[in-house]
């Protein structure tokens, strides 16, 4: 017991240091500008804040829509315990991605322009609208948890009526912008390394977002189970891992088919750090998890399941960084490595996200057995009247 308190304090100190450093970096960014605080340049205008905070933040949040589709559209009831944590992660993920964007934009105070100044040819315009709408959807999807906590059955009843259309809208919006984050790069064929550029980028982004979404569900379930001692629903998690690996294999097959059809396989033979990074991405994101998760024995083993999810997530992160940074740096004379300021702002956002997740699951019924939304309203009223809801 004493040990766990000590460990907790250690991480608390680390978190505080990261946040203080992040706040200082934020101060530098907003008082001295992008030039002084980042390693961005005319030759390399998008860096870590787009490549990691935006692309990875939104991608890792894909668990929210993926699980919702399984539980509320395909009506696979047994997955319902996983829905709320996934929706919460997604909501936090989007908020943090938008926070990261506020650092990256040169004129962040003008971000609302996207609402009234339209350019329908722009992928980024589409992404902006999808992210705005989907964040609202996520809020509505998570709102019942808040209503339950504060015992407000009447509003809950209204939300319940519109929950299915809202979830469908959420899935459609996610499909659009998860793929469109890949479409952002379609317009720069000559600027990107051929191993990553592909007209199929939106498809790759979409498929990998789904597989990583499920991996994130597994990863969070393990972390929160360890921290709060609720039981692990291993059969559900291994089912998640199975869905994840199916999408990974489809994605990988498509990639290889594309590379061979477009005559790009030769680039795999050019041995350079860039090619090694491509191999590394495939190794940790595809081969290692495929090896473990294709066997039922490993898939139902806690340890392998956990490590496979970590590998899938790492492979995903490397892929997004490779698309947004490596592939561009490889083709231009400019080099880029994020500055301390960029890194520390990113770390601060990650820490804030984890801290918020922790705080919310401590105070709201996130890990409750099923969505109260699904119970008849009379039942909801009967639960919420007596003071039986535990803290």
């Amino acid at each position, binding site marked *: 017991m004493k040990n766990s308190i000590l460990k907790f304090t250690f991480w608390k100190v680390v978190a505080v240091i990261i946040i203080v450093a992040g706040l200082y970096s934020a101060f530098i960014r907003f008082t001295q500008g992008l030039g002084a605080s980042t390693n961005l340049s005319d030759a390399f205008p998008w860096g870590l804040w787009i490549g990691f905070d935006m692309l990875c933040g939104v991608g890792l949040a894909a668990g929210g829509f993926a699980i919702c589709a399984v539980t509320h559209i395909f009506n696979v009831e047994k997955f319902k315990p996983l829905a709320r944590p996934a929706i919460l992660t997604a909501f936090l993920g989007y908020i943090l991605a938008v926070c990261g964007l506020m650092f990256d934009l040169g004129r962040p105070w*003008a971000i609302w*322009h996207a609402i009234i100044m339209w350019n329908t040819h722009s992928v980024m315009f*589409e992404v902006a609208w999808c992210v705005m709408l989907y964040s609202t959807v996520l809020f509505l999807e998570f709102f019942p948890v808040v209503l339950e906590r504060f015992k407000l059955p009447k509003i809950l009843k209204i939300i319940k009526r519109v929950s299915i259309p809202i979830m*469908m809208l959420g899935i*459609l919006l996610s499909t659009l912008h998860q793929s469109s984050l890949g479409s*952002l790069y379609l317009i720069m064929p000559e600027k990107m390394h051929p191993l990553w550029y592909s*007209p199929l980028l939106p498809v790759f982004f979409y498929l990998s977002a789904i597989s990583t979404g499920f991996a994130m569900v597994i990863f969070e379930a393990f972390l929160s189970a360890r921290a709060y001692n609720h039981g692990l629903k291993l059969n559900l998690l291994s089912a998640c891992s199975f869905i994840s690996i199916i999408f990974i294999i489809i994605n990988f097959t498509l990639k290889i088919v594309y590379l061979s059809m477009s005559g790009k396989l030769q680039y795999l033979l050019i041995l350079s750090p860039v090619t090694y990074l491509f191999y590394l991405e495939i190794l940790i994101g595809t081969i290692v998890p495929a090896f473990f998760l294709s066997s039922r024995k490993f898939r139902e083993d806690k340890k392998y399941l956990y490590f496979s999810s970590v590998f899938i997530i790492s492979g995903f992160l490397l892929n997004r960084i490779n698309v947004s940074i490596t592939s561009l740096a490889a083709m231009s004379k400019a080099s880029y490595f994020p500055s301390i300021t960029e890194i520390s702002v990113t770390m601060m956002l990650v820490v804030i996200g984890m801290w918020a997740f922790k705080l919310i699951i401590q105070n709201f019924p996130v890990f409750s057995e099923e969505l109260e939304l699904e119970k008849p309203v009379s039942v909801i009223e009967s639960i919420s009247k007596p003071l039986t809801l535990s803290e």
Partner: protein
Amino acid sequence: MIKQKGMLYDVTLCVGCGSCYNACKEQNKLPATNKDYLKDHLSDKTFTVIEQYGELYSRKNCMHCKEPACVSVCPVGAFTKTELGPVIYDVNKCIGCRYCMQACPHKVPRYEWTSLNPRVRKCILCYDRLKKGLPTACSEACPTGATLFGDLDDLVIEAKKRLKENPSTYYQSIYGLKDAGGSSILVISPVPFEQLGFTSHLPGEPLPKLTANAMEKIPGVVSVGALCLGGLYWLTKRKNEIAKEERLQKKESRSHEK
């Protein structure tokens, strides 16, 4: 009908005197950035440069594409391709995402990195002068006629004529005629363009087409997706209900048997 304007830059005529560089600085009220203009590079304070490649000079500035990537990618429509030809920028719309810089095939737009209220900066083909019927400042300053201003259609004819009349002098291609869908700036030179620092191997079709190919699938994805989701929801729900009823019936029949 308004005729599109443009410029023809003939490398064989350029003597690298720097008149265009200075005229541009003056016209756009830009501060001095380098004592030796030949060593300067495009920046938020320099919209055109002259680069030296051996005995040849190569001038760089915004190409003013016919279907510009910057115009198509800007989420708030801060860039406009005007009827006269210039691609202009409206800072009052800009949110500072820098997608224009990321997307530009000619790597032209520059950013005010040191400013807290940063703008994207680039050549705007002296749009204000063009509106008054004046030529660009750089072409007016050019003493040798290396930078020629005129109606784009006439310039294309002129460039083709020069290539045809002096096949031994010119590399037989016009940069900007088809590259990335074509532009309002045309370049002719005695050597292949990549030797003068131009981006070669650009697709022949406008780059925004690549994005449009993906974007035009959106309505289909949304409608088919909505139908599939609705259908699957209905099917799976019905399936669950039937399963539940069957379970109930079994229970009932069992209790009847008892």
